[in-house]
């Protein structure tokens, strides 16, 4: 039913380091997924709006500024407000200190990919996600 997995890769906040976001975008696209990349400096509300409009399966936040906890909390609230909190999986990648990994999982993040995780592992995880039946 579902077709190709749809992934939204987002750079929320002011952080401009997008190497990881772009490399993951290219890798997922190579693996046959549909990838939308927001570009830099996105407001969290806009990320949630795009997630809804494009009916994506996964929102992947890339954050290297240290603001991951509060930006993720805001995204979760924004997805909740749009009624898609349970339909969309959220993952976070970037410069995430080890103690913050469980904190992100507590916020409802499905998976954290700190810097240094091999692409293969990321692609494999995404490959195991099912396309939402809604589409």
């Amino acid at each position, binding site marked *: 039913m579902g077709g190709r997995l749809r992934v939204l890769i987002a750079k929320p906040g002011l952080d401009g380091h997008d190497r990881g976001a*772009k*490399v993951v975008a290219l890798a997922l696209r190579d693996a046959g997924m549909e990838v939308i990349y927001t570009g830099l400096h996105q407001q969290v509300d806009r990320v949630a709006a795009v997630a809804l409009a494009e009916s994506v399966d996964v929102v992947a936040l890339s954050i290297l500024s240290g603001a991951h906890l509060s930006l993720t909390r805001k995204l979760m609230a924004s997805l909740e407000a749009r009624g898609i909190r349970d339909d969309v999986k959220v993952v976070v990648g970037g410069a995430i200190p080890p103690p913050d990994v469980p904190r992100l999982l507590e916020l409802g993040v499905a998976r954290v990919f*700190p810097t*240094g995780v091999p692409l293969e592992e990321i692609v494999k995880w995404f490959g195991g996600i099912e396309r939402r039946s809604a589409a």
Partner: protein
Amino acid sequence: MSSWEEQRRAWQAEIEKRPPAPASTSSGIPVDPLYAPPAAGEARDPSSIGFPGQYPYTRGIHASGYRGKLWTLRQYAGFGTAEDTNARYRFLLEQGQTGLSVALDLPTQMGFDSDDPEVEEEVGRVGVAIDTLDDMEVIFAGLPLDRISTSFTINGTAAILLAMYLAVCEKQRVPAAKINGTIQNDILKEYVARGTWIYPAAPSMRLIVDTIEHCAAHAPSFNAISVAGAHFRDAGCTAVQEMGYTLADAVAYVQACVERGMNVDAIARQVSFFFYTHMDFFEEVAKYRAGRRLWARIMRERFGAKDPRSWMFRFGCVCGGSTLTAQQPMNNVVRVSYELLSAVLGGVQSVFTAAYDEAFALPTEATAELSLRTQQVLAYESGVPAVADPLGGSWYVEALTDRMEAEIAALIERIDGMGGMVRAVEQGAIQREIAQEAFRQQKRIDSGEKVIVGVNRFAKPEEPQLTLYEPDPRIRERQVARLAEVKRRRDGAAVRRALDELKAAARGTENLVPRLLACAKAYCTVGEMNGVLVDVFGRFQEPASV
């Protein structure tokens, strides 16, 4: 005793019996197993290498290498509020550091005030928050600004921060002619790699020319631009691309200043460079030697600069960056040490050695101290600084320098053919090239073709936990309170007048630095000044890049 030619043939025969696996530099330049002169006595023409302190400066810009002047030990620091940062600077200067490098938080870099709800999670996070001149006064309180050099990693709002620094120096009665330091002020690479752009390319280029013009006239020892390849490199490009894109950016800036009517020799003194030094040891040495020679040729032949100082390629670098790994973080100390040695053998003028925990967080005081000691050990114990360009004349290093120079020159020519760096960046062409290269590099790492110790070889399942720098959760609260107090104390009418004058000037063509200086002295905020400029200039639209 066999002749040289017989020895060479014997070596060749030995190699052909068991040919070694092919090898290449990280830029993909093939590397022979040995470099030797092609035949007895057929050494390279020594005049093509030249002497240090002489055109084309392959062997360095100073005749006596580091004996006359050691490189500047410059650690990047700045966090939380102005008081926190002032305390860290005093500590670093007491420990023997000779230059300051100011890390600013993202709201300051992007033109937001600390009380803007849009940026609440980012205040004071990756650097110090500066809202008004008042913060600048606290950061530099009690520091000898006439004797140290201060470098600001600031781009989108560089003209605003320059105005604030000039104002603080004026208040401390340091004459502008005695101010040393740098603002990064390199917007083209921000569009490509680091992302702190605000305005479109044309008004951004105007602001850059304004700052270069102002400093050339009033603060000639302050470098108004540090053209940075570092961020291209951390975004994933090769050493050849890093140097090629950077020199192409510099050509665009010099060209824009020439078009303003400035004298090329006045422009040249304002321009310095900044790179990341990565792990391919000899390639990094050759990168700097080739860049130095090419820049000398560009300034002399392309722009017709007459003053020998205009031909000199002066650069700083970071050792660390994306070569640091989160896995087995102590290995980063070793990586940074090798990178530092290659930068020094490449003739660097100032170095920031990253701390080993920077793959996770800002450094703690202890890790920042270790990274400074890393430089001091090389500078004072190793004997390396005693001889200028000690690798000069090495068959390998000279051959690699020539090869890299040719590849970098070809890249610059290709960008010229695209209409120059401004056009190439507006169209997203450079962004796409770098993203592709980053993807290629990542696949090489994941496949194990490119080895990273502790990551894809010699990895351990269990990692020790580091004690990390924990940001103070009350930073924003404290900074917002400071800002409210400044806003209460300042003369509101003077603020409005200064901002109105800035707006009128921005609509015209006059140099904006004096207007920004007036705004800074009236305690206008970064957000207020930026708001005026956004109203007039608009915002950059990011081209699709993946």
